[in-house]
């Protein structure tokens, strides 16, 4: 396991900043600066090579690049057909396949993506340490119970759309030697009834277990968002470690969103790594024990009026993670 960072903006300044923080591996979410993405959504190899070269100059390797399947509400998706089962999905999937092939050709090992309809619903902010604000979710405070544009989405509907997608893209990923890392549904919502009629089947550890079995392939796995997994648990302190021990040995942890929460299923705050319910050092050791070898990236960080760009928060989280990794590795080297 090693330190990583997700970067939405790959300017030289941002690359230098993460290099200074000791980051040597990143997930690139910026397809614009190097003109990776063409207007029709396909990707060009020149752009992919250019961004790799720029990163290489800072000693940084692009482990992962983000497909244009973000954690956004369905109407803001570039490719909404995939998860809504619309007729447009076949054309969309063709574009995704092209993206996968281009990524393979550029020698980038992994793509991350979401299979998302609701975005990332939250119900406000909780005041935390030093006045920092923590993203909060409490199902009791959720007020909008209207159906979405997708109407009722049963678990069966959602699984059918997920399967349709995976059956078509995973073979291309195998051919291209590119791993596909899917983010689970953040947050977990009621298993019966869902949220706004949408059943989020990737919002439970059991759902994630089913997901990895749909298409048996070493190239099909998870962007293991430890924070989201914590949000699925009644007792995150124990269940998160169990989940790591389940998915790690199966080779399904392609990258990690390394963040912590206070609370659990249907009611939680996203806190600093050192004050949540999950023992982050125990988590690092669980990854190492499970044979996983992937980036630990900070993900969401607390919001702070004294840090509008989040540089201080991310620097803090990266320093914290770096120390946990350094100690864990040094103890194992003894």
């Amino acid at each position, binding site marked *: 396991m090693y330190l990583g960072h997700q970067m939405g903006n790959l300017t030289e300044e941002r690359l230098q900043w993460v*290099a200074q*923080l000791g980051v040597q591996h990143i997930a690139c979410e910026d397809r614009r600066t190097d003109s990776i993405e063409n207007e029709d959504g396909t990707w060009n190899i020149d752009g992919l090579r250019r961004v790799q070269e720029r990163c290489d100059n800072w000693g940084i390797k692009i482990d992962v690049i983000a497909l244009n399947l973000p954690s956004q509400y369905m109407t803001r998706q570039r490719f909404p057909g995939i998860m809504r089962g619309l007729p447009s999905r076949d054309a969309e999937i063709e574009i995704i396949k092209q993206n996968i092939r281009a990524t393979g050709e550029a020698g980038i090992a992994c793509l991350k993506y979401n299979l998302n309809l609701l975005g990332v619903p939250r119900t406000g902010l909780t005041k935390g340490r030093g*006045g920092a604000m923590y993203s909060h979710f409490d199902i009791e405070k959720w007020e909008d119970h209207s159906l979405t544009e997708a109407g009722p989405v049963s678990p069966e509907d959602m699984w059918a759309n997920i399967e349709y997608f995976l059956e078509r893209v995973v073979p291309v990923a195998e051919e291209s030697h590119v791993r596909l890392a899917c983010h689970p549904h953040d947050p977990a919502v009621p298993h019966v009834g869902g949220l706004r009629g949408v059943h989020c089947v990737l919002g439970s550890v059991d759902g994630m277990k089913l997901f990895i079995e749909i298409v048996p392939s070493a190239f099909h796995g998870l962007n293991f968002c430890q924070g989201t997994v914590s949000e699925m648990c009644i007792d995150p302190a124990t269940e998160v470690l169990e989940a790591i021990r389940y998915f790690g040995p199966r080779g399904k942890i392609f990258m990690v969103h390394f963040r912590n929460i206070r609370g659990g299923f249907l009611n939680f705050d996203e806190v600093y790594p050192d004050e949540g319910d999950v023992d982050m*050092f125990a988590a690092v050791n669980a990854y190492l024990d499970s044979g996983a070898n992937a980036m630990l990236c900070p993900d969401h960080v607390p919001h702070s009026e004294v840090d509008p*760009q989040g540089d201080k928060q991310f*620097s803090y989280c990266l*320093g914290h*993670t770096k120390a946990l990794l350094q*100690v864990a590795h040094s103890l194992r080297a003894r």
Partner: protein
Amino acid sequence: MKLGLGLYPHLLTQENFRYASQVGATHVVAHLPGWSARGQRPVPADQPWTYEELLDLRSSVNAAGLELAAIENFEPHHWSDVLLDGPRKFEQIAGLKTIIRNMGRAGIPVMGYNFSLAGVYGRATGPWARGGAKSVGYVRDRAPAPDEIPNGTVWNMVVDADAPPGTIGRVSADQLWSRFKWFLEELVPVAEEAGVRLALHPDDPPLGELRGTARLVWKPELYRRVFELVPSEANMAEFCQGTVSEMNGDIDVYQAIEEFATARKIAYVHFRNVRGKVPDYSEMIVDDGDVDMVRALRLYHKHGYDGVLIPDHTPGLKCAAPWHAGMAYAIGWMRATIALIERGEA
């Protein structure tokens, strides 16, 4: 062990106190030289800090939920003639005593100071830290000529603009130690009575002589001489681990931590990493220098040190908040490591 953040006068704001709490610091060290020069304190710099001023400072820190662990450094104007053995030294030592008594009354437990004539002098800046981060260091080939110190200057700051031309000349080790002994003999009893600990910073750069003047603690073992000079629980070290690791001495930085933590002589710690030793070194990002910082923290803990550590300096990072982000990274690293050590897991 406790995590602190060192703040210069312009950073002593509620906004920065909130930032300190966010990154998990519980203590603040207030670095006060320049307090008057910046207009935050509407009296001349040579005026001793009053009880009210110090209490206000402590209260503003406490109001943010933090503790004020120490004040770092007198104004050079407070004690220039104590350092230079000048005619105003009796008047100035009385002022220092007033400051220490006021600190005691205001509940500020530690006074960090650097008994140095040349001060922090001759260091260069360059992109020497990881990722080209801007770092400071002492680089033999880039050091300025060690000219003698002009009259009216001490600690790299002009304290008397009307001083006659010429220099303060050479100051031998014997002269310096004798001035220091007088300072301690005068101030330590006052500190003991006031419940304030005096904490001596080592000399950075740790050269035996600089600008014709001797240096006090430029090898780790010289701290022994400091503590023997006036034995007292109020006579302690502001243990700048960074400076100590720059030194060429009989004992290394790890042995120094062991010895002075065991002897209960560390008032607080400047926790920073360095590459190289004098006369060629530069300051590094906490996990990236010559010193095994996990081992260092283990040693403090093992030998009973339970005080405050601050990151001291850290190379500036390329972002909108270079200083704050650098400190945030160092503090994040320290917080994780200290917690593991105290839990017995590292």
